[in-house]
Structures are given as C-alpha cells and as structure tokens.
C-alpha cells in the first residue's frame, strides 16, 4: 500500500514529507459562511491536522475588492509565520496599470511574496486582456509563478487560453488553478500543458472525478502537477486523501504534494 495512503487511512498527518499547498486564501468571503477560523491561526490548525507544512496564499479580500489590502495581509502573515506561509501578490486589472506595477515592485521586487495571483472570473476581465499585459511581462522577466483561476471553456479563463499565453511568456510559470475544474476542464488543461511547457496543473477543487489524477499524471507527468486546497474557501483535507489514495507511485505523489511547489516558488 502507498505510504501516503497508509498514513491517511490511519488518520495520521503526512510526516517526513514536503507538503506545500499552492492555492489558499484567507479571511471571510461574501457569499457563504466559513464555519471555522479563516485567518492564519485557523489555517495553521487545519494544516497541522493533515500534515501541510506551508501554504502559498492570496487572501480573499485581494481577489475581491482590495488587492493592495490583501497583499499587505499576506505579507504580514509571512512575516509572522515564515515557516507556514508564502504569498501571492494579487493584481486587479480593473485598476490603473500603475497600481499593478507598484504592487509587484513593493511585494515582489522589494518584498517577500513569491508569485502572482489573478482571478479573471471575480475581476470580470479576460486573462489575455491588455490590462494584464504589464503583469505577464513582469512575471516573464522574473520567472515567477502565476496562479490563475481557470474554468472549463470559460471566455475569461478557459484552460486552452493559456497555451498561447504560456508560449508568449515562456519564463512565467503558469499554474492553472482548479485545472479547469470539471473533467472536461481538466482535459483542456492537459491539452494546454502539452502545448506549453511552462503550464502546470493545480489540483485545487472541491471534488475530483474518480481516476482523473491518474489520467493527468499519465498525460503531462507528475512534474507539472501541484497540490492545492483553496483553504479556507474549502476544507483542504479531502484533497490530501485524493492524492494519497491515487493509483500513482509514491515518487509521483512526493512531487505533487510539495517538491514541484518547492522548485517553482524557490521555497
């Protein structure tokens, strides 16, 4: 039996492994209740329950109405808990390009954040739109991971859009958040990753079709797949079991659970 599943099946946190969650948020969200503490301390308690060492985080308010405030919140969490939090600098394309450049300069060039987060669906702006031009150029110049919310066939952030963006910005490392979400979206994410080698699949989702992780790994290789949970938007613990129980090798699980994120985020 897989060492990972053996531990999870016994209810034991994953120990002695690099476990890095590439997709988290922080704080409340407007359209549903989050029953447990959604702030740093509550997230750490949830991480400890299953053995997640570190998360890469973009607070909810950053993907919502106030990216600069959210960026400050995660920078503060990184300062308080440097072993448990890393952060994304979120940019909002509905505000002047000057704000985007200032935020990237403040938090990445001179700060501690490790990647960029964009949310085309919440911001109602396409990932290939002009207002993201400065962000993509910055990410390409600095070789940064960019976590993008993606959804099956979505006009703002459908996975297939990112093969072109990836080829245009070959040094940016594009993480397809949710891998397109549905099984068809995952098919589209696989296609995008096959077409652009800097496109990666983030497994964050509230569900996983049976056998789909095996398909993803067989299609793009375990080096291009990352563990993510969406905590505290979602409970992160199901995702641990989905990967731990998959019919793939423990070596591949190690890459997915943390080694890939460690490499991409230079953690």
């Amino acid at each position, binding site marked *: 039996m897989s060492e990972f*599943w053996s531990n*999870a*099946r*016994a*209810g034991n*946190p994953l120990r002695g492994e690099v476990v890095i969650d590439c997709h988290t948020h922080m704080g409340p969200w407007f*359209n*549903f*209740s*989050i*029953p*447990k*503490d*959604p702030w740093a301390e*509550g997230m750490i*308690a*949830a991480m400890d*329950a*299953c053995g997640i060492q570190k998360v890469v985080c973009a607070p909810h308010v950053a993907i919502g109405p106030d990216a600069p405030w959210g960026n400050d919140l995660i920078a503060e969490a990184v300062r308080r808990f440097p072993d448990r939090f890393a952060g994304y600098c979120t940019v909002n394309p509905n505000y002047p390009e000057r704000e985007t450049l200032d935020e990237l300069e403040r938090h990445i060039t001179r700060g501690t954040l490790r990647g960029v987060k964009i949310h085309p669906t919440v911001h109602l702006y396409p990932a290939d739109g002009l207002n993201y031009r400065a962000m993509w150029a910055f990410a390409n110049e600095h070789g940064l991971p960019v976590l993008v919310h993606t959804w099956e066939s979505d006009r703002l952030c459908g996975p297939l859009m990112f093969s072109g963006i990836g080829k245009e910005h070959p040094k940016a490392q594009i993480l397809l958040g949710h891998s397109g979400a549905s*099984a068809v979206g995952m098919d589209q994410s696989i296609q995008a990753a096959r077409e652009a080698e800097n496109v990666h699949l983030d497994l964050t989702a*509230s*569900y*996983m*079709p*049976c*056998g*789909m*992780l*095996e*398909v993803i790994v067989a299609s793009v290789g375990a080096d291009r797949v990352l563990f993510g949970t969406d*905590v*505290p*938007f*979602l*409970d*992160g*613990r*199901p*995702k*641990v*079991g*989905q990967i*731990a*129980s*998959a019919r793939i090798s423990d070596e591949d699980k190690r890459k997915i659970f943390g080694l890939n994120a460690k490499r991409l985020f230079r953690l």
Partner: protein
Amino acid sequence: MDLIPFFDANCMIGRRVAPRPETNLTTEQMVEEMARLGIGRALAVHAYAKEYDPRTGNERATEACLKLSTLIPCYVLLPEQTGEMPGGDALIRYLADGGARAARLYPKEHSYGLGETWCGGLFGTLEEAGAPVLIDFDQASWLELDGALTAHPDLNLIVVRTGYRVDRWVYPMLRRHRGLRLETENYVPHGALEAVTERFGAERLVFGSGMPVWDAGGAMSHVLYADVDEGAKRKIAGGNLEGLLWKPQGDRHV
C-alpha cells in the same frame, strides 16, 4: 487502534448513459476499489433506476447485491399516483422483497415535485416505516426539502452531495428538522464536519463517496482528519448510516 470502518451511503452500480472512461468501473471493479481503500460496505443504486426505469434498475440492484455481500440495495422510488410504483403497504413489501434498506429519489430527473401533492403519500409511508430516503442536492431546493421535513418530521432524509456554499441555508434546517442529515462527500466548507458536530451532533453527518463518478479517498480523508473525537468519526464514517437503515418488521412486511 483499529482502522475506522467505512459504510458508504452513496454508490452507483451498472452501466451509465455517459461515463467518462476513467470512471467506467464494473461493479466488481468498484467493489475492488472499495476494498483497496477500506470501505467495508455500501448502499448501491443501480444506474438504470436513475437513467432508464426505476423498477428495472431496482431489480438489477437486488440481483447485483445478492452476488456481492458488501453491497446493499438502495431503491429508487417514484410517487405512486401514476401506478409506476406501489404505494403504502405494497411499497413496503416491494422494498422488503428486494432487500432494499434505503430509498433514493431523483425528483428533478424524474419530473415530479417533493410537495405533499406528489410525495405526501410516499414520504408518509417511508416515515412510518422508518426507512431513510436520500435526495441529491441538485435534485431539489432547500425550500422543497424544508417543506417535506415540516410535513414529515419523523422522516430520515439524507441530502447528498451538497457543496460549500450551503451553511446559511442548512444550519436553520438542521436546527428545525431532527430528521435531516447531510452526506459528507462534497460538503466541504472549511471545518464543516467539526462545526456541525459541535452545533448539532455527529449524528447529522453520513459518509458517502459518490463512487464510481467521484473520488472516494478524498471523501474518506475528510472524515479521517476531522478534528472530532474517535467516537464521532466512527459515527460519521458508518455508524450513523448503520443506525438509519430500514429494518423490516417481521412478517408484517415480508
């Protein structure tokens, strides 16, 4: 300590209309997957009962479950008014004869309402018999479920595959309706299992996986890593479902 045993409230067997290749497991393959993961038993709906004809599917469920002791038939039912399905005592005999221990409804797919006009008799029969009924979240609205439980306060109703945006709807209903339970697969607000256990008791949560469409390992780790005591985990993983299963009453219904 012994591994926590799992009893799955939400499995489907049989040939489906549009399976993806990776989810297209035979019943034997699904049982093998259950064994690999450590799911001891499962309530099984036959796909024909949802996607073709409930009576035919229910017969197939009974046949399959007679061959595989880890599976227990969960019959898909309809309101009795059209004559497609028995009602009253005949319905109870139908469930008993087929070995069914729970019922499942697909009101949206099968084109009827959950109100008293359509389901009053069906719910009354299941309520009196103590047979649990499972309804998928995408098959009904919270208002419909609220109405059904208000009219039938002793009905044991398990809402399947809810989501993470439901607590503002569901907490008032858990407070008001003692018969309401939530299946845990995809009920994934941050800390949801702990919060429901603290506020309403672990008895209100029932493990399900959604196999073979959905991944079962994640549904299991959700429970295994929950910050609740061992007893509560065991209830959620299988004890609650075990207690809810319909138990035919001697000769009366057999």
